[in-house]
């Protein structure tokens, strides 16, 4: 097996939060602005290539 192939197996992280402020709680983490999200992704070494969202959540396709 070539040691230089692309690693398909993912790492997966799921974090849950709580907050007391009902206004914040409604949108919560979805209030994070894109620059903040991108800063987090920079630490991981990936970036957003596509996005979609609805009333419940936002989904981003990322690329290393």
């Amino acid at each position, binding site marked *: 097996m070539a040691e230089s192939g692309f690693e398909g197996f993912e790492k997966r992280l799921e974090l849950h939060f*709580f*907050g007391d402020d009902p206004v914040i709680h409604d949108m919560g983490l979805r209030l994070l602005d894109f620059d903040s999200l991108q800063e987090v992704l920079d630490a991981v070494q990936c970036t957003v290539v596509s996005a979609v969202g609805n009333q419940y959540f936002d989904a981003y396709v990322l690329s290393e």
Partner: protein
Amino acid sequence: SSLFVYPTKIIIKTCGTTQLLKSVRPLINYAHDLGLTICSCRYTRGNFIFPKSQPFPHTSFKEEVIYLEDKLPITLCYRKATVMPSKMTSHAWHVFTACDQTQVVTPLPNMPDIAFTMEICMTDLDRVLARKFFRRPNDGKNGDTAGKEMTDLTGIGDINPGAIICDFAFDPCGYSMNGIDGDRYSTIHVTPEDGYSYASYECVGSVYDDQDDVVQMLKKVVQVFRPATMSVSTTCASHEVWTRVAHAIEPLGLKCRSCIMDEFPSAGTVVFQTFTVARR
């Protein structure tokens, strides 16, 4: 790779040599700025095909656990780390969970909803089917339009016809997709190259869903990729879902080779099943 942002939950899933766990502190800090406090963490992964290529802190599961233990607040005091083996050395399931007092799962019969997460990893994909995830040279498309073409060509769009799909094709090959359907996501990532071909499918659901939904989903996923090896990790507060997995997959020519389960204080029960092509 994918990122899902809910009001009080964030899921980030990355492949390659990304340093996923380096997102933990920044996310906790940004959430704190919003008045949100972390209450649980779950980290999972399979076995790396190329472990020596992984940078710190992903050099070993022990190193990942030490890193997480260091970055998470002491309030998340219910912690557990397990490597769930299978009969194949190439397939083991790594789970780390941590939660505070409020998140310790006590499955009560009258829970309004019992959600599950299903993480599927497939290797040794059918070569002809995998080839559909290669871009045609000079196709004049961009990642989005090529991605949509692959979604249609491979039948991925039929796995959950009700979902809105956000897809992307990489160059020269590779594919990612997120499907959103109400408050539920599904996600697919494909590395089609011979020798280390890989595809993942992940979705969330409820034990109260129509039992046939999970069966049909698994059938369609297998038909899209025809993997020689497949692992299914089901995380749920109850035992409703994992029992359906083997029933759905074995008729497709993949035999269950191992099944192991473990309890985690916040996530509930994690069941790790592996399947390989049944020998004729």
